[in-house]
């Protein structure tokens, strides 16, 4: 017979204000099998844990139930407590009376009754618990970083610095990401390329870093410490090892109609191209949609001129498979689609542009060589109007409900740079709120207003329309309570940002969670911000939420620290709550292997004694405990009830259901 102890936590007033904790402790103390019960203000505190340890020893407890917060919060804490007092850590059950009771109920009576029921349920399960022992697995000392923007670059450099091997998989032909497209960076106004490209070169030269550009993650298997990833290397029709990056193919290519993605489609590029001068790897790529040779078979100019003989029109996608201990997602962001915001005239007017397009127009390496000319007629715009929050903080359903966070600062930067370079230009900014928290940020914005005379107008814009060659920006000035229309030459939209769309596929491959806005979810919003809820998967940069460059780099380094901490371990404890199959009941039907998402179940032929000296060979299921993640899908699917999940056996779950239903 078990001797169970029940420990009811107040969580300060978090639980105690809504749940009568004393009554819960007293009532549960009467339950069969329970020999001790107590309540305490903070069970997770040192004193609280000591109370548990003392009770385990003094009352000879064989198992404990802690009525407290979610097991995601403190299950590990209380398991350690029990273990240090000599109990098996899997003889601990948590009844969640905070998230599932006190935080969602108002009525004390109702909440107290529910807390008692959840406590009983945990006791019913614990009565059937058996001690479990965790096994161990090794750790592959190599990390994968998906995405080669500033986030991925920083994470990879930090991991490599600690001495571990790391691969960067980047879907575009070069690493560098969005930051490579920017002109200057706030709040110091240093040029983005000047601070980014040395880091890109560091990546290329670091022996521990392997860059797989123009590549995508195709398949992910395994678990923390032991992932196997299949990577597709897209055909670039150029032999990476031979190409010297001389650029002759670019200059001779007769197909010039491809849109230049790096310049936000503001101009064209040849079919054979290197995205930008400082690209890493400095290797050309051929766009099969634009290449005349690949489309019609006639041309081959680049092949004739290439001295390195690097052109290979027959190249196919290839695959590499590698093992990793940890995976970092650093897939970044894109500008949200503006198709639901026709009122700003983006689709109909060439001179209504996004801020990222403006970055290219102001960049010395951009389509206008850094001279600010408006796209429609290449003239200098004299009146420029910025519209902030286009699609951000939007509750109409057309845009994003969140603040994109970076727009207030980059708009102040753009306004200031334009006024500095072209003092004859009038600059207006429509804003809802100016949000500039951050070191030296508000000072930066104030400089735009006070020193550079940028006209900030509090109010939203209703529409932008063309009238006699001018872009009429119609909006309201809330401070003077006036409706105003500004005849402008160029309109710049601070469009909302959203996660790079490929992140959805990657989240599915990694079985990690994504929120309603397609941002990846962190394990804990405050305490585990760079880990995903899936063990071994880490988050770096914009894929987790909007952030600027300083914040992205901080997070990228934090992420690297977590990865290094994992890779530094030689062994990882496995979860002992895995499936086990009863050979005597297994009929070898194959159902469980079919539903297993981790490929943990195989079939083996086993010899069984039938008595009387006879034997028979039968096919039965065999679970690889290192691969099984304990999801329980097989236990539900098994038609003969042969397979069960340790720690969550069918009997235990039925006992819980019974305890909930029985009054």
């Amino acid at each position, binding site marked *: 017979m078990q001797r169970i102890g029940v420990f009811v936590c107040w969580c300060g007033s978090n639980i105690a204000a809504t749940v009568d904790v004393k009554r819960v402790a007293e009532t549960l103390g009467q339950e069969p099998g329970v020999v001790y019960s107590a309540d305490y203000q903070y069970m997770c505190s040192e004193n609280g844990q000591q109370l548990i340890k003392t009770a385990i020893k003094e009352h000879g407890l064989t198992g404990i139930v802690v009525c407290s917060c979610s097991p995601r919060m403190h299950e590990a804490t209380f398991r350690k407590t029990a273990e240090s007092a000599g109990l098996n850590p899997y003889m601990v059950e948590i009844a969640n009376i905070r998230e599932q009771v006190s935080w969602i109920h108002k009525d004390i009576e109702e909440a107290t009754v529910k807390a008692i029921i959840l406590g009983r349920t945990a006791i019913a399960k614990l009565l059937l618990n058996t001690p479990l022992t965790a096994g161990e697995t090794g750790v592959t000392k190599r990390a994968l970083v998906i995405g080669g923007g500033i986030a991925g670059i920083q994470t990879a450099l930090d991991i490599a610095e600690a001495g571990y091997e790391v691969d960067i998989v980047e879907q575009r032909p070069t690493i560098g990401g969005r930051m490579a497209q920017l002109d200057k960076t706030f709040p110091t106004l240093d040029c983005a390329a000047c601070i980014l490209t040395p880091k890109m070169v560091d990546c290329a030269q670091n022996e521990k870093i392997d860059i797989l550009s123009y590549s995508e993650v195709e398949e992910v298997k395994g678990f923390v410490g032991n992932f196997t990833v299949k990577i597709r290397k897209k055909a670039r029709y150029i032999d990476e090892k031979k190409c010297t990056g001389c650029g002759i193919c670019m200059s001779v290519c007769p197909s010039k109609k491809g849109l230049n993605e790096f310049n936000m489609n503001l101009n064209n590029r040849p079919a054979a191209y290197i995205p930008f001068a400082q690209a890493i790897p400095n290797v050309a790529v051929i766009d099969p949609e634009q290449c005349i040779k690949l489309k019609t078979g006639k041309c081959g100019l680049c092949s004739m001129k290439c001295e390195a003989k690097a052109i290979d029109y027959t190249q196919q996608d290839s695959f590499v498979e590698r093992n990793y201990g940890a995976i970092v997602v650093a897939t970044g962001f894109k500008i949200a689609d503006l198709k639901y915001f*026709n009122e700003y005239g983006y689709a109909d007017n060439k001179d209504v542009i996004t801020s990222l397009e403006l970055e290219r127009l102001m960049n010395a390496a951009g389509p206008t060589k850094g001279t600010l000319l408006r796209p429609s007629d290449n003239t200098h715009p004299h009146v420029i109007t910025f519209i902030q929050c286009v699609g951000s903080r939007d509750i*109409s359903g057309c845009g994003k409900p969140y603040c994109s966070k970076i727009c207030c600062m980059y708009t102040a930067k753009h306004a200031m740079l334009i006024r500095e370079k072209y003092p004859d230009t009038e600059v207006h900014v429509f804003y809802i709120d100016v949000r500039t928290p951050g070191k030296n940020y508000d000072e930066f914005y104030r400089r735009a207003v006070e020193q550079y005379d940028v006209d900030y107008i509090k109010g939203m814009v209703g529409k932008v*329309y063309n009238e006699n060659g001018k872009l009429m920006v119609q909006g309201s000035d809330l401070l003077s309570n006036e409706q105003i229309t500004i005849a402008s030459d160029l309109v710049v939209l601070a469009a909302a940002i959203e996660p790079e769309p490929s992140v959805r596929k990657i989240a599915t491959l990694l079985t990690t969670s994504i929120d309603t806005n397609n941002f990846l979810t962190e394990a804990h919003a405050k305490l585990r911000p760079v880990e995903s809820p899936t063990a071994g998967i880490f988050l770096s940069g914009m894929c987790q939420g909007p952030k600027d460059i300083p914040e992205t780099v901080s997070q990228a380094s934090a992420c690297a620290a977590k990865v290094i901490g994992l890779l530094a371990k030689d062994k990882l404890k496995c979860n002992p709550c895995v499936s086990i199959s009863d050979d005597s009941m297994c009929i070898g039907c194959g159902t469980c292997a079919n539903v297993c998402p981790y490929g943990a179940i195989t079939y083996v032929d086993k010899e069984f004694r039938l008595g009387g000296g006879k034997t028979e060979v039968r096919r039965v299921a065999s679970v690889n405990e290192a691969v099984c993640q304990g999801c329980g899908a097989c236990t539900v699917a098994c038609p003969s009830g042969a397979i069960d999940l340790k720690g969550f056996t069918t009997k235990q779950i039925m006992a819980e259901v019974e305890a909930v239903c029985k009054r």
Partner: protein
Amino acid sequence: MKFSYYPGCTLKTQGKDLDIYARKSAEALGIDMEEIENWQCCGAVYPQAKDEIARKLSAVRALDSAKKQDGKLLTLCSACYNVIKRVNNDMKNDENINLKANNYLKATGYLAEGDEYNGETEVIHYLEMLRDTVGWANLKAKVVNPLKGVKIGAYYGCLLLRPSSVLQFDNPENPTILEDFIKAIGATPVVYAMRNECCGAYVSLKDKEVVKKTANRIVNNAKANGADMLITACPACWYNLNHNSDGSLPVKYLTELLAQALGLI
């Protein structure tokens, strides 16, 4: 298909054409519009004062009367649609207005003891009926006199679209329903920026100069984008765009063009 129909005062006086062509077209499309009995003026824009209960009552009566028929109330005038749908929303979601309106209607004997109106009726605009009940494809098939080559600017005004959270008629910034209608009758829609700007509405009673400005702004913007004519569902808009603009662009009711396309005129 039968609908209880609320015409409203203007459609019986200044805006007769809007009503007449709507009925003719509906008949041709197999829709039976049955005018509810003893309806009163919806109150135009007046019932929108939050604390004014009495002026919402005629809308509540119309809604209750439709509830007792088929549960649907068809409207046509933009102002009536706006008022009736917003009052209906108040009866559904505003406890204070619901309680007072019901109490008043019971006290005056309009509602029997135990009877209540709680916003059950569905308020439908004629355009929504064309889109959802008839269907654009069906409508297109019934057009005998397609208005080929006619460039029509849809003029929405404000009352059809706002407040969008209550009316849920169309996207208030980038509406499409009137353009879809124009395509269905065989004409070419002209999209122009001012199509959802206010025409000046009742300000024309007080200050003609203001309305001349707003009306001309709309007409000029439509002309600049190549429109040959404007269509509207609102008698107030029709009046302002016809009589307070420079008159350079014909402004018609959408139902008139519908009847024309269906070969009824």
